């Protein structure tokens, strides 16, 4: 590739150097780490490397991963969405109410799911409006939205969960299609969709352009205002879908839940290679990152690690993720 590499006498060192310049260096390295961690865990406990356990891991990360995909869009375009956790709690409420009111009728279930997605999109739309037209910083705008969502759902429900969701709906969160959890199937479908968008569409290219240099993108004729709102709506839609699965998994609407999703989705995105300052990162990386976090959490649970210690481990993971990112920048 160039003289520095050609000069490296040791052929293995040469191959490694060449590798660091590879387009998918981060993703491949992450996959390697995942494999190594899995290998170590399989040695430490016989329960890890079972089909059942692995599918459980995927099921557990599915919600966070879907949110992480939406979050990745936002971060790549130089933004942030802090409202995801509270929005999930808020979305759970109308979804639950509509479905319960229908007594399990499929029409009402469909309506409930639709309302979840629509409300998620609406939250994203408002975030976008605040950021684009009121010129609020994304951090502030979504932080405010987080408060509004949380306050709204807590005051309406007075903090009480809403129970009574029918089995037909609960299937979405807990059911299996053959050996595969249904929520994992949803996650993979969304994965395919976001990979398509980012790699093969003009819109995807625009997202990266806005993240790389917003002013240059604007001066190149890209309608930055419009696309920014769309990007936050995508995050909102992902939150909507995640909210539906979440309610189904818990068989209830939980107005106080959802906060860990914020931290975990951002961590998954960053671990996956999405730089906080925007312009880079792939959806494949996000998926691998989310799975890696899921595997580490699962491993810790199987090994009976103190749950508070698990927090520490999660924090260390973020540090490692961010450091490797900035080291790569040179």
């Amino acid at each position: 590739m160039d003289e520095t590499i050609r000069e490296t006498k040791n052929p293995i060192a040469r191959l490694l150097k060449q590798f660091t310049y590879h387009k998918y260096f981060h993703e491949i390295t992450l996959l390697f780490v995942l494999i190594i961690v899995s290998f170590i865990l399989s040695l430490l406990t016989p329960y890890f490397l079972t089909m059942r356990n692995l599918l459980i891991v995927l099921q557990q990360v599915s919600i966070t991963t879907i949110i992480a995909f939406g979050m990745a869009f936002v971060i790549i375009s130089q933004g942030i969405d802090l409202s995801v956790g509270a929005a999930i709690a808020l979305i759970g409420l109308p979804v639950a109410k509509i479905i319960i009111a229908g007594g399990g009728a499929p029409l009402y279930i469909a309506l409930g799911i639709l309302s979840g997605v629509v409300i998620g999109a609406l939250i994203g739309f408002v975030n976008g409006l605040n950021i684009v037209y009121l010129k609020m910083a994304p951090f502030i705008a979504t932080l405010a939205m987080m408060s509004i969502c949380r306050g709204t759902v807590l005051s309406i429900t007075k903090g009480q969960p809403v129970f009574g969701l029918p089995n037909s709906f609960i299937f979405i969160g807990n059911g299996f299609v053959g050996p595969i959890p249904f929520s994992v199937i949803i996650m993979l479908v969304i994965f395919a969709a976001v990979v398509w968008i980012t790699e093969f569409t003009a819109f995807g290219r625009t997202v990266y352009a806005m993240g790389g240099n917003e002013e240059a993108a604007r001066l190149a004729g890209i309608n930055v205002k419009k696309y920014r709102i769309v990007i936050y709506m995508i995050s909102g839609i992902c939150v909507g879908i995640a909210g539906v699965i979440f309610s189904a998994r818990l068989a209830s609407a939980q107005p106080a839940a959802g906060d860990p999703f914020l931290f975990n989705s951002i961590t998954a995105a960053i671990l996956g290679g999405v730089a906080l300052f925007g312009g880079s990162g792939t959806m494949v990386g996000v998926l691998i990152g989310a799975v890696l976090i899921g595997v580490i959490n699962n491993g810790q649970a199987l090994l009976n690690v103190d749950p508070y210690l698990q927090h520490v481990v999660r924090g260390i993971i973020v540090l490692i993720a961010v450091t490797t990112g900035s080291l790569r920048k040179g």
Partner: protein
Amino acid sequence: MIKTDPALLRMERITKRFPGVLALDNVSFSLRERTIHALVGQNGAGKSTLINVLNGSIRKDGGSVYLAGQEIEIRSATDSLNLGLACIHQEMFIVPDVSIAENVFLGDIPIRGFYRKVDFALMHRKAREIFAEMGVELDVRRNLRGLGVAEQQLIMIARALHRQSRILIMDEPTASLDTHEIENLFRIIRNLVASGQSVIYISHYLNEVFKIADEVTVLRNGNNIITASVSELSEEMIIEHMLGYREESKDFIRNDNLGPVVLEVENLSSGKLLRDASFSIREGEVIGLAGLLGSGRTELVRTIFGADRKTAGEVKINGLPVSINSPADAVRLGLGLLTEQRLQGIIPQFSVKKNITLSNLKKIMKLFRLDQKEEDSIAKQYTKLLNIKVMSILQKISNLSGGNQQKVIFAKWLHSDTKILFLDEATKGIDVGAKVEILEIVLELARKGMSVILISSEFTDLVRVCNRVLIMKKGRIVRELESFPSESFLQSEVNV
């Protein structure tokens, strides 16, 4: 000027590699005491790299550096500063809200007494002394708000003197200065050299090199081609060394085959910097926009392009009034803008290929997806057409030289089927070879029917390619010239 041997600073056989390029190939460079030594060369020749090795920004791969006969290792910016090397960049490292004296003492503010208070008296006194030595009158207690680039530069120099620097490295110091300020700067540099400083002076402006420098070194492709006393060389000889071949005196053939009027601007105003501007341009015409700094040229093109908001006036394209509220509108109507700051025209993380297609992604779409093959082929076509020097179209654009980046931006507007192109200082800071190529590209585009509005401070360029030149002053178009026989004619018209 008293010149003493041996050399104060000697760099021997310096090598530096970056991915894909050998930036410095066994370059040797000596700076003699009390000398102004100019460093010239095209973009990509290695000037910035050599300087970066000296100021600690990058580490050399091979070679040695000697200061006053002793070998030194520069591992960081701190090392460089401690050794007495001071770099005056184009980006100003100043803090606008504290006083001039504090800026001069930045990082080294004197404190005294039990309570460790800032010793303002000492700071002000020393700062005044330094400025007196330079022959500059500035109130050291005021803050920097309202000070122009020229004064900021002087403060950077003062800081270097405070640090007891022996060697000043000046990188394109006159890029944003007017004639008067340049004279002042040269006077100060000569004073400093007389009192013991040595200066490395990097510039694209060869006329300045002849005015101020004692010696000159020409770099090309990472090699030191020649080092000589300025009196031994002529401008043509230096250019020949820079390019590696004799530059044939180009005969630029203006396009006189003009079509109907394509753009009319009537009474356009925008904020304070653009007042009531009116002009029109025909198909195939190249119009020059000349004027002093702050005359409103950039504001005029940005407002037409929708990048800045207009407060009054009308724009008509092909006779029909249009409403351009954003660059997106402008691009859709066939306009293009090559910005004054190159960084506003490229996405640094994107490859050359992706930058070229950025403004017209529709063209490479095939049924909802981007056609990679089509994109590759288009990028290769433009690379060949505009002679863009890249190893591959997948190369990150930030790795290209300024001139090549500029060509990529041109390609972007060509790909977007631009009919009316605004060029804001398209040849600024670009090496001689690329500059000529770009001017030829402009004429070729005009011949094919594109209308070009060319903002330039280089009167030579304007004379070469323009059909008409508009002079702007204080936000208005004050004069329209149909004939301009020479650069000095234009210069005097602008300075009226």
